[in-house]
């Protein structure tokens, strides 16, 4: 039996694993990365939305683009990636068994990094085994990798970022999202993600859960009901929807079994068993590391930084790099990670209801309960000003770690400041030229351009628009409010697309002046884009 030896074995070619391999390879380590899938990149290639964060976190870059960059970097540094290679065992002496083709191969590493990610959680209700009940990850795979609609009429369960982001992607794929429910009383994910789908007309049902997937051969409908504080359905609150797909986005569990098998010290958390590890991913077994979601569920941006930290630590452990220098590198990466963990959605705030922003402004309860900020709540945020000429209106109402809008404005109209989680403020003293760079730069699609009095009694609203086919100048349609309800009719003035906007199109519509602060979406007359 032959055993191949490597300095560093990485299990999982997702954002964490690839980042770790690249970071170590830069110091001369020759890593090998195994992945059970046919394609590398983990979930990155399904993530067609723009990421949050700051420049150093590659904010406003789409996940799939980040995936391409990572693969190119891996190739540049000579990282070996083995695909269709499922690691089936990890032993404490740092040996792994891998299923490749029809054989079991043995590899031994001086170090092993486990970056196996996470698996989706399921919930069980009557009919949950019917075809048509799918995970949000499956929906993403079908849409974004294979270009197949998961269904025509979809009901989404889960208001975390996964449910909200996939909900929006379903709309982009032309599906109808008939509703979104969560047993929690408040939206769990970013308000800006919720607002994106609420303004398309998706109704939110907080404090609701799925009672039954209806159908005999496959899903034909869904019954939901309101839950009380004891999480039991309140009789008489049942609601039925025609649907062919029920999409579950009810959290992720770390796939930590390999670490457990190796004998690493584990901790049973609410999210599932995770290895006890240091900031650089070092587990209780010398030479075995863990990075990314397997060591605790976070976003892909965090996974990439955690991977880099492990890669840097491994390079030092193996003697390829100076320990002092690597320590500094890990410290610097730790600072970047710390930035991403700030704000209302930080790990320590998980599950807490926050009613005031850092600036002392009340958080929109309408946003938390219905997915959209109410018309009478929006004026209190610093990104919302009223000016004579064209100007941005920034409907960013929660402290999240994200600041591309500040750098996007060539005129300095937008200010977030040093603290990345601060709400963006619009400086009315600086002159907006209406270039739209801020609109396209906002990963939350929360920036609009408003101009009053372009004609007698009418003004223009410019909205970020990521649906096809694009409306054309001169089209008329319905202007929708933040809650997705029709507000008035609107005429398309222009549609701007540019490589600098990275597939976010800027749609300018003409509406009466008094509707400018109400209108936030445009629906083509024939109900295109599945709306």
């Amino acid at each position, binding site marked *: *039996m*032959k055993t191949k030896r490597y300095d560093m074995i990485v299990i999982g070619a997702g954002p964490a694993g690839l980042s770790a391999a690249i970071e170590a390879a830069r110091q001369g380590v020759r890593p090998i990365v195994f992945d*059970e899938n046919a394609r590398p990149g983990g979930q990155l290639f399904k993530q067609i939305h723009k990421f949050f964060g700051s420049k150093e976190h590659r904010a406003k870059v789409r996940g799939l683009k980040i995936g391409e960059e990572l693969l190119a970097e891996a190739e540049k540094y000579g990282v070996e990636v083995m695909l269709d290679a*499922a*690691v*089936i*065992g990890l032993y404490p002496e740092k040996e792994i*068994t891998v*299923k490749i*083709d*029809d*054989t*079991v*191969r*043995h590899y031994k590493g001086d170090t092993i990094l486990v970056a196996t990610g996470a*698996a989706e*959680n*399921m*919930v*069980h*209700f*009557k009919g*949950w*085994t019917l075809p048509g009940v799918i995970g949000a990850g499956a929906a993403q795979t079908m849409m974004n990798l294979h270009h197949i609609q998961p269904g025509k009429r979809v009901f989404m369960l889960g208001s975390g970022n996964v449910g909200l982001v996939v909900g929006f992607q379903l709309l982009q794929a032309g599906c109808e999202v008939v509703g979104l429910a969560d047993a929690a009383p408040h939206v769990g994910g970013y308000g800006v993600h919720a607002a994106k789908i609420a303004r398309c007309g998706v109704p939110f049902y907080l404090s609701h859960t799925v009672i039954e997937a209806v159908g005999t051969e496959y899903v034909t409908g869904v019954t939901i009901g309101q839950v009380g504080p004891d999480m039991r359905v309140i009789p008489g609150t049942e609601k039925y929807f025609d649907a062919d797909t029920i999409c579950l986005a009810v959290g992720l*569990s770390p*796939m930590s*079994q*390999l670490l*457990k*098998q190796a004998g690493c010290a584990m901790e*049973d*958390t*609410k999210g*599932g*068993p995770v290895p006890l590890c240091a900031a650089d991913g070092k587990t209780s077994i010398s030479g075995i590391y863990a990075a990314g979601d397997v060591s605790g569920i976070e976003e892909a941006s965090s996974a990439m930084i955690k991977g880099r930290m492990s890669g840097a630590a491994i390079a030092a452990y193996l003697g390829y790099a100076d320990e002092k220098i690597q320590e500094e590198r890990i410290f610097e990466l730790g600072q970047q990670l710390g930035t991403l963990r700030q704000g209302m959605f930080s790990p320590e705030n998980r599950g807490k209801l926050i009613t005031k922003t850092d600036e002392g402004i009340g958080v929109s309860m309408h946003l938390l309960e219905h997915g959209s900020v109410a018309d009478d709540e929006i004026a209190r945020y610093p990104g919302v000003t009223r000016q004579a000429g064209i100007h941005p209106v920034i409907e960013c109402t929660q402290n999240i770690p994200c600041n591309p809008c500040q750098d996007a404005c060539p005129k300095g109209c937008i200010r977030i400041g040093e603290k990345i989680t601060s709400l963006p403020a619009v400086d009315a003293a600086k002159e907006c030229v209406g270039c739209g760079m801020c609109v396209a730069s906002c990963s939350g699609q929360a920036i609009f351009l408003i101009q009053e009095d372009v004609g007698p009694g009418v003004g223009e609203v410019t909205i970020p628009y990521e649906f096809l086919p694009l409306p054309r100048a001169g089209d008329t349609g319905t202007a929708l409010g933040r809650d997705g309800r029709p507000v008035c009719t609107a005429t398309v003035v222009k549609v701007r697309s540019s490589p600098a906007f990275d597939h976010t199109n800027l749609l300018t519509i003409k509406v009466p002046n008094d509707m400018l602060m109400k209108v936030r979406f445009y629906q083509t007359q024939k109900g295109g884009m599945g709306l």
Partner: protein
Amino acid sequence: MIDIQERLRQIGPLDGAPDDDLLVCRCEEITKGEIRRAIHQGMFTIEELRRYLRCGMGLCQGQTCGRLVKNIVAAELGVSPTEITSATARAPMRPIEMAVLADDGGAAHG
């Protein structure tokens, strides 16, 4: 260590629940009722339930139902799911044909 007799007395007799016919482990087709009954027979750990009922022993190796089973056990015993010991992790971690597993090292392929 849990005193099984003491705990069985505490959790009381098994009542029928309206969702007892719900499939929980879809690979091995184990229902919620079967799992609840096994718990009332004294199977308090995931490992015991796996051996007794085969829930979580099928194609997905408990990837789908592992957490659900844990929650059912926790609910029956009236404890937090984190107090329920997870299943032992052992190779092979993925479903694999016996012929492949037997060809360890690829000797048959040279």
